[in-house]
């Protein structure tokens, strides 16, 4: 009577879609551009897969075909992570300065 873990993951996926729906609708329109950049940054969490792939190389041959793709994916995802979060922070910082000026 064990339940397949896939079904749990699927449940999590469905509920996360609901959460996403609500959480994104509640984003104020003036922050839609930072929203685009931050979603970009978080979607790079795919780096976890890249790390697993990269570390799977054997100790004699660190750069076999699958780990090379892992390393490449790490570079790409890292550009996104740093770039995405930093550019978002830069934008949000600008919004922050406002209140004082009023």
């Amino acid at each position, binding site marked *: 009577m064990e339940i397949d873990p896939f079904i749990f993951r699927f449940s999590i996926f469905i509920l996360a879609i609901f959460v996403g729906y609500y959480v994104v609708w509640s984003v104020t329109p003036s922050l839609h551009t930072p929203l685009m950049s931050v*979603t970009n940054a978080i979607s790079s969490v795919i780096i976890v897969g890249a790390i697993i792939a990269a570390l799977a190389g054997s100790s004699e041959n660190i750069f076999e075909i699958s780990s090379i*793709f892992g390393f490449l994916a790490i570079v790409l995802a890292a550009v996104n992570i740093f770039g995405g979060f930093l550019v978002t922070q830069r934008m949000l910082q600008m919004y922050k300065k406002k209140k004082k000026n009023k």
Partner: protein
Amino acid sequence: MISANLSAIFYLVSGILFILALRGLSSPETSRQGNLFGILGMIIAITVTFLTVGNFSTSTIYVFIFLLVGGAIGAFIAFKIPMTAMPELVAGFHSLVGLAAVFVAISAFKNPEAFNLGFPGDIKLASLIEMSIGAAVGAITFSGSIIAFLKLRGIMSGSPITFPGQHIVNLLIGISIFVLIYFLCSSQSESFFWSMIAISFLIGVLLIIPIGGADMPVVISMLNSYSGWAAAGIGFTLENTALIITGALVGSSGAILSYIMCKGMNRSFFSVILGGFGGDASVSNDKKKDQKPVKSGNAEDAAFLLKNASSVIIVPGYGMAVAQAQHALREMVDTLKKNDIKVSYAVHPVAGRMPGHMNVLLAEANVPYDEVFELDDINNDFANTDVAFVIGANDVTNPVAKTDPQSPIFGMPVLDVEKCKSVLFVKRSLSPGYAGVDNELFYRENTMMLFADAKKMTEDIVKNI
């Protein structure tokens, strides 16, 4: 090395932190904290992955090196990029996520043991399907985003590239991806895998080339949504909660933003995606021009009008972004405010070229966000306002959207600038905007056209006040 249970909990925590990151964006005050939550979530996810694999070999050092190389490039881009280039930046970043998804899928295919998915040539069926979907969607995201990037950057012409039977070709290629996945699953043969990826790259290109450059924002947002679903697909393969939650968040977010944009333009999502709009459609309208009389003025006239107003509403549009006029504009407003004139900004949901585009530019120029109003909140105020200062905006003010059911923008909500006592239009010519529709406001009694580059004109006005 930590247990599977513990790492599952940490991945959940990082998923929750990503939710909180988006939740923070519900107001500018909480948004920076939200971004920190996002960063924290990412750090947790990466750390836990290291601890779970637990194999601290020389590879680990290389992982760090590559992480830092990528990070340095990303940080460099983030600090250098001008705010006006945000649409391209987002498109470019999407392409990277897409390609990363493809690479992870390839690694998983070549070395399934590392991911507990079986053995080369004998990968679990469910995992194979999940990784194929992830790879295909990732590849489409990659090549589509590259095209979007090239069009937005102006490297590739913005006009739609169409050929007969295009939709049928796309459909056939789309079907062939599924067929290839089917054969891949039944034979586990590598050639099907590579062909599927190649064809996915191809269809990404073919899907985006027929779409006009100006429709790219909707495309970017759609590709954002795709990259989310790709991440979720890989998340199922890797059995990783953080990726599944994130994929769903990003998927929803892109879909909702596309919807908001389409609604703001009153166009159907499909008419955008099927393409062919916004390239040279405007030509047909040209003949109408110059027939009607137009009142035009110079910086002095404009300064006079503004100085004598008691209230002004600024309506920024795409032209302000192109001219980078936001700082000059801010200066002008400061001067007006010193003369005790009430000034506010009206931002249309699709002003500029991406959602929230004008808000970022105004924020960059230090405009307080509580002076910037959305359409619904300010539209009734135009009637009690002396001057509407329309700078580089066009379609979002066009009253034809309210009056002419034949017009392509009919039904799109617009800013009622014509209700102001007088309207100043800063643009370089009488040519139409993105939608290619002539704007009858130019020919009205209470309109004064200020033909010039937005930045130049604003600076001149400041000198004259």
